[in-house]
Each structure stands twice: as structure tokens, then as C-alpha cells.
């Protein structure tokens, strides 16, 4: 019996003695690829998939990791960032896992990569038609703040009924004078579905609109994959007379590369200093913009 079953395994899925290329078994990868194809065909639609348990915890990039492992091939080059930093602890950990299970080369330069897996930033530059951007998504549901019942959420997306979202944005503006949504700003994709833009800062939203590259969003815990295909309209939800605002830091420049043209994060102190969140951009622009 055992022999027969093991023969069956060998015949259907090949050698099982070693951990497979890109960790997941071939059936799982096929399922992820099918979900990705659906996601690309219906931009912004959250495609359910049978998310696997990964060697990283749920909430730590397990969805992005499955997407990357689903699309990666032996000729790819990977870049992984967390908060824009290639050396962030979680970026290092995920990169280590991807590289060790595939043997592909790694890079910190977006332009040299073919796949960029990221937590909460889009590289400042370098992404073009040959790139796939894989975003790790903690909460894929953009409407959860305005509706808790999943059955109702499914109806709202199906009927493109985003009225509750509009009301919430309106109330926010009226009460606070500005729209206070910080990261993960809700966007309408291809005039049809509202998506959660992961928690990337508003700074990165314009990079998604009509982008040359493919963006894939993976939410492992909530078991959803969605996509923004290349050259697709991505519109932040706002009103005609309330312009969408990215993060502003008037007068601030990076203390390392002096840039004021990248997303800056604060180093608090008696006199705060600022530094690029995209460490690779910062390194390449050290000593002034070239």
C-alpha cells in the first residue's frame, strides 16, 4: 500500500523528498497563479484563495510571500523591502526565505530586480514594464471601517455601492477640516472596485495610477489576492473641491542625501531630523541628486 501511494505521488507531483522550488507544492502554486490571473482580469476585485500556512506568521507578509512564491521563476531577481528599507528585519527574513528556497539572486536596486516584494512602500523609482510589485496586505477590505458584516460587504462590492464610504469621507472632512485617512487610502480601480491600498502612504498612491508595472496584493490571513494591472486607472476617492493630498513636510530634507523629493521619515530629537524611507534611493542619491 505504502509503495503504491508513494509511486502515485512520484508520478503526479514528481520528487517529494526535498522541499520543492519556492517552498510550496505545485498544486498550491497553481492555485495561487489562477487566483492572480482572475485578479488581473478583474482589476481591484478581491479574489478568494486557499491561503496556505507559511513559515512566517499570518500578519507578517504570508500573503505577499505566497504571491511571490507563486510567480517566481529561476530567472528572476528579487528585492524585498519593509517600510522602504532593504535591511529591515522582516524584509531580511522574507528575502532569506525566498532566496534560500529558489536560489535566485537578490538586489536592493529596484531597476535591477524583476520582482519587488514590499511592506507598505513603493520604491521611489526604477519600476517599469518588466516589474512585478508584490504588496503585503494586512487588511484587504477597504470598507471594513464603515461596515462590519461580511455578507453586506460582499453586496456593496457586487453592486459598486460605495455610498457609506463617501459619507464617511464627507463626515471626516466636515468634522476635522481635512480627510484624516493617513495610509491605505481607498482608491477606485478601473472605475469599478474600491481597494485598500495596503497601508502604503498617500505619497505612493500616484505611483499606482496608470503604472507601467503590475501590482499584486496578497492578504494571507484574510485569504484574498487582488491586482492593479499595468496602465490601469487608480483614483483616490475624494471630492471635486477637496484635492487629494500626499504627505507634506515643508522645509524638510533628508539628512543623508539632502533629497526633498522622496518620502521622509522623522528621527525625533530636540531638533528633528529627516531621512528617506527608501534606503536604496537614498544611497543612490547621496551627495546630491545625480
Amino acid at each position: 500500500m505504502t509503495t503504491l501511494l508513494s509511486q502515485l505521488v512520484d508520478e503526479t507531483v514528481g520528487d517529494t523528498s526535498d522541499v520543492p522550488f519556492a517552498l510550496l507544492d505545485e498544486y498550491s502554486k497553481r492555485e495561487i497563479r489562477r487566483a492572480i490571473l482572475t485578479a488581473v482580469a478583474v482589476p481591484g476585485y478581491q479574489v478568494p484563495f486557499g491561503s496556505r500556512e507559511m513559515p512566517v506568521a499570518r500578519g507578517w507578509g504570508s500573503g505577499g510571500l505566497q504571491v511571490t512564491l507563486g510567480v517566481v521563476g529561476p530567472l528572476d531577481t528579487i528585492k524585498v523591502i519593509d517600510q522602504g528599507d532593504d535591511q529591515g528585519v522582516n524584509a531580511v527574513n522574507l528575502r532569506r526565505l525566498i532566496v534560500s528556497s529558489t536560489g535566485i539572486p537578490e538586489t536592493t536596486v529596484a531597476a535591477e530586480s524583476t520582482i519587488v516584494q514590499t511592506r507598505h512602500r513603493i520604491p521611489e523609482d526604477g519600476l517599469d514594464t518588466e516589474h512585478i510589485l508584490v504588496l503585503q496586505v494586512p487588511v484587504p477590505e477597504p470598507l471594513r471601517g464603515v461596515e462590519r458584516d461580511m455578507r453586506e460587504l460582499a453586496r456593496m462590492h457586487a453592486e459598486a455601492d460605495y455610498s457609506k464610504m463617501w459619507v464617511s469621507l464627507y463626515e471626516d472632512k466636515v468634522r476635522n477640516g481635512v480627510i484624516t485617512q493617513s495610509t491605505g487610502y481607498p482608491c477606485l480601480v478601473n472605475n469599478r472596485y474600491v481597494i485598500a491600498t495596503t497601508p502604503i502612504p498617500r505619497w505612493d498612491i500616484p505611483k499606482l495610477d496608470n503604472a507601467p508595472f503590475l501590482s499584486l496584493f496578497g492578504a494571507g490571513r484574510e485569504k484574498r489576492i487582488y491586482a492593479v494591472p499595468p496602465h490601469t486607472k487608480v483614483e483616490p476617492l475624494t471630492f471635486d473641491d477637496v484635492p487629494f493630498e500626499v504627505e507634506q513636510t515643508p522645509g524638510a530634507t533628508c539628512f543623508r542625501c539632502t533629497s526633498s523629493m522622496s518620502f521622509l521619515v522623522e528621527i525625533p530629537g530636540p531638533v528633528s531630523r529627516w531621512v528617506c524611507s527608501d534606503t536604496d534611493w537614498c544611497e543612490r542619491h547621496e551627495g546630491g541628486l545625480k
Partner: protein
Amino acid sequence: MGYAAARGGLDAIEAAEQLVRLKRMASPSAWVDRDQIVGRLRLAVDRVMGEGGVWDEDLAAVAIRQSEGDLIEAVHLLRSFRSTLPRFAYGTDVDADELRVIRRIVPAFRNPPGPQLLGRTSDYTSRRLELTDESIAREEAEKLQTQLWADQLDEDAPSTASQEHQQPRRLLETLRDMNLMVDRRRTDDPEPFDITRSPARPPAPRSARLSSMARAETGALVNQWYRNILGPDGYLHEVTLGEVRHGYLPVRVSHPITGNPVHVGDVRVTEVEAIEDLNGIDEDRDRFDVGYGLCFGHNEKKAIAMANLDIACHRDGGQTQVEQSLLLTTDGLDSSGFLEHLKLPHYVTFRSMMERKMAVRNAKQKSASDDKGTSK
């Protein structure tokens, strides 16, 4: 140090891993063998197999040892190991009546049909910490080991009890004979919902709810039950247990060539049937209904909570979000993973939030100075 924006993330996480390994591997205490964990931490092993959805005592023991006894972590190790394995066969249907009981109690009757078999339980053992001298405890252990084999005290040993004693008729059957049960048995035979392959969201078939609960984190399920009994949700009604069983179920697969079912082993499960007193205005007031719970290993807390929540969810009929709670909030990997992700760097999102705080402040100041301007 070495965290977040600092360079050298790899050095830091490798050093952290080394610290973990050092205490785990280089502890001056004796090495714990897998069979010691399987033999002595029986309920922990059962729980990890149940929540991990993998029946393998040896692998569960490895996971418990590696996780230093953090059972949710052990479940994670087991489940992510399973992700690397292809699924190449499905078990054939097993009738739960085939369960060979080693424990069976029926709280609903003093003398139910079939035995009241207390079996192995510490329910009635007084909870006193046994501070016996170690050498005396070891002596007792050795004596019992000899006795166990000599007197066949092992509950797993082949039983000489009658068929009726080993596979007693269910109380439910008796109640059905008395026309006291609502009959919800289906005549069709739908494929069960596979929660490992499709994400279950409400409204979902009952099989999705049952399998979600069978793999749920035990503490999460007990909490769901209790907060529905006593807490803010209160959708739940206390049941009377009709069956609490612990025993063996056969596992069979179809032979790849002959197609005949082949017995490949047994799993130990806990099974519960919860009799529900229907007291709703529109419900069948002269009959009872039943909720069902079944999970791997000996885990009665989980099976009882599951059975009660199963019938509660059915009676709720989608009126509230109790189904969403069961399907989406009871998985230990989901909840603990997401909770712990808060330790990851969050400085990009936090920077963006601070920027909005300043924007709100500026808007307030502007509107205050505008007001001043108009009042002049």
C-alpha cells in the same frame, strides 16, 4: 539595536535565533525525547494535532519541543510543514457510529441505552498539586508500568467488551424513536466544504463551520462559547449533553488500483452531541434539536463548545454575526499572528498619521482665525 531602520538586520535576526537555540539546545537539563512528549504530555500533543489539522503524534511532539511548549507556535510549525506536502488522496466517508469508545458519558439520563463509561478523565480528581517526592513518584511510575501490561489496564489494549459496549447506540436514536427530535437530516450528500482549500465566509455551509471549529484554537472556542453565554453577545443557550465520547475512528482510502476502501489507520477523536431545548416563538416547542462537535484527540472542552456553538449558529439563522465570529475569529494562527505583527516596524504608517495630526491642527487654527476675521 539592530532593529528597524538600523542596518545589519540580518546580523540581528541571526543573533536572535542563536539566543533562542542556545537555551533550547544547550540547556543543562536532560534532552527530551519525542516519545517522552507523546507519552507524558498527552493532552498537549492531542491539542496540537487537532489545531494543526495533522494526525501525527511524533510530528506534534517535535513541534512542541521546538516551540518550547508554546502550543500555538507548535500548531504553526505543524501547519506550515503540511503546506509543503501535496495532497494525493482523500479518505472515504466514515460513519461516526463506527467510533470505538474508550469513554462515553450521557449527562441527559441516569441510565441511558448503553454504558455510562467514565474512562480516563480527571473530572472527579481533586485538583491538588502532587508534591510527592521525586524518587517516590518514580518508584510508583515503574510499578504502574509493570502493572499496566500485566493487568491490561491500558485503555488502548484490545477490548473484550461486547460490541454494544464498544459502539453504543446513540441517545439521539432513542430520542428520535420517542419522536422528540426535530429531523434535520439531509437526503442529499453534498461535498464537504474544504476550509484548507477555500476561504469560508458567511453564509457558509455547516461543514465549513464544523471544520473551522474542529481546527480552532481551543481557548478561542471556549471564549466564544462563554461570551455568548454570559458576555455581550448572548446568542447562546445552555445545552444538555446527550453524548460525550472519546474513542477511535477508522481512516480508509480508496485503493489506487482496485478502488476498494483500505483501512490505513485510526484516529482518536472526541465527539459531542448537544441536545438543545427549542424555546423560540417560531420553533418546534414539543421537540429538541441537536448540535454536533468532533475534534482530533482528547479535547472535551473544545468538542462541547463546538457542539453548542453549532446549534446556536443554526438557530441564529443569519440574524446576527455569530457565524462570522466562528468562521473568521477562532483560528489561532490568524489571531496570534496578526496580534504579534504589531511588533513589526510601523514607522511609515506612523509618520503618515503624524502628518495628518498636524493637518487637522492646521485646519483648526485656520478655521479659528477665519472666525476671528469674520467677527471683527
